[in-house]
């Protein structure tokens, strides 16, 4: 292969040797425009990707998703809401360093159909698995079903146990599908029905907050809980 390529290269050099500059350009354009296009396209892509990889905001500083939030709620709790702006101000987030997402376009009920064939549920799973989702607010039965599949942090273990201990009396439990992990119910959510979200009437039948299983900012979730007025008790 190497030898064949060497021979090919030598023969092309020989052909080019007998040509003037204009003829060389015409020859290369005629026979190698596709290669030139490929190299140019490849280089452009490489530069474009590297530029974005190094110079654009790529991480979420805080990502909360309000699942099945009713119609008007996006104005009150979504990305254009005063609630989001208030939290950004309170936490002092710099939006040039990380994005803050208060998502409302998510509609599924894992308790009913396990999220099967539901694009919203699948995108929810992607965001959780990517470790971007910090918290999700939804109805209790929905959260239990999602939590049982291990997509919410177990609030009785590790760092979360200390961090969310003040909310122990509000814990919502689910029995994990993975029986090797636990056969007993584990806390997967915090009831926030009496918080501002409850008072705003966003979730009429109450709501529960779960912390993303791979969240990098559980301490920010705690700050969010305090921000929306879900008070914890000192253990």
């Amino acid at each position: 292969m190497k030898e064949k390529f060497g021979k090919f290269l030598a023969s092309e050099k020989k052909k080019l040797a007998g040509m003037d500059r204009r003829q060389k350009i015409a020859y290369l354009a005629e026979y190698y425009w596709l290669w030139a296009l490929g190299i140019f396209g490849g280089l452009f892509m490489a530069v474009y990707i590297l530029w974005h990889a190094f110079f654009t905001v790529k991480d979420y500083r805080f990502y909360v998703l309000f699942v099945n939030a009713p119609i008007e709620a996006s104005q009150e709790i979504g990305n254009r809401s005063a609630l989001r702006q208030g939290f950004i101000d309170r936490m002092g987030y710099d939006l040039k360093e990380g994005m803050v997402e208060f998502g409302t376009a998510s509609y599924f009920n894992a308790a009913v159909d396990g999220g099967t064939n539901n694009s919203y549920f699948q995108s929810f799973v992607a965001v959780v698995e990517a470790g971007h989702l910090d918290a999700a607010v939804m109805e209790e039965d929905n959260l239990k079903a999602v939590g049982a599949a291990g997509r919410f942090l177990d609030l009785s273990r590790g760092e979360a146990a200390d961090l969310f201990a003040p909310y122990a009396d509000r814990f919502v439990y689910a029995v994990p599908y993975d029986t090797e992990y636990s056969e007993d119910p584990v806390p997967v959510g915090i009831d926030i029905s009496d918080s501002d979200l409850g008072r705003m009437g966003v979730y009429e039948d109450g709501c529960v907050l779960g912390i993303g299983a791979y969240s990098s900012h559980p301490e920010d979730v705690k700050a969010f809980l305090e921000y929306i007025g879900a008070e914890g008790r000192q253990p």
Partner: protein
Amino acid sequence: MEGSIARQRMNKILTHIVLIIMSFIMLVPFAWMILTALKTNQESISVNPFYILPHNGWHWENFATVWKSYNFLILYKNTLLMIFWRVVCACLTATMAGYAFGRLKFPGKSFLFSLVLIQMMVPAQIFIIPQYLMVSNMGMLNSMFGLVFPGLVTAFGTYLLKTGYEGLPKDLEEAAMIDGCNIGQRFTRIMMPLTRSSMVSLGIFTAVFAFKDLMWPMIVCTNATTTTLSAGLAKMQGQYGSEYPTMMAAATLAVLPMVIIYVIFQKQFVEGIATSGGKL
């Protein structure tokens, strides 16, 4: 003899009646969407089947409401750009890969092509998380590249074009080789133009699937200025969930580009479906 002709004519008339009825049934959802978009909310939720047309005037302002609430020009721009780049990338990569798999001999060809086939056998949802992580790590969330990313290469297109190239006679390529064409010239000047119909099919399929794609734009583009029509509509569902006329006005506006594309490329659409044997 006369009886046979009369029977044939009767069959023809009956066939046409059935086809006309079926056509009307196919059009009902579109007609319902447009008529609902012009009603008041109360009219739209009326269960009376005789309330087909708006009773209290034609409410064109529903279109104005959604047009003002959501910047449709940006949604159109994002959607059309995404479709354009996905079609360009899919056709470019698929035609090259199809030619390589269909006409060239190289070590590991069967193994590599089996990898392509495996990709077709696996549900697309499985790729969502790795693709999302890749786009996220490249810093491409909320960007056009992020939207186009899953469409950069296509296993279906590679397969379609491979079969297209395989169906072409070898003599053509050999004649070009004798005339002094190198591999690039044989590919671009001789072989590629002959797979035009397969490329058109692929382009149409890619365009329709890109237009319908909901999940990917919803994941990678959370920003209102970078999202597409399908994801924008999903968000509107949250905003106008019980205001059916507004929702339907948004849906009507959303399908407009596809209707225009279909009207322009109607012949190619039909040919494309016939060539690939697929359904849209």
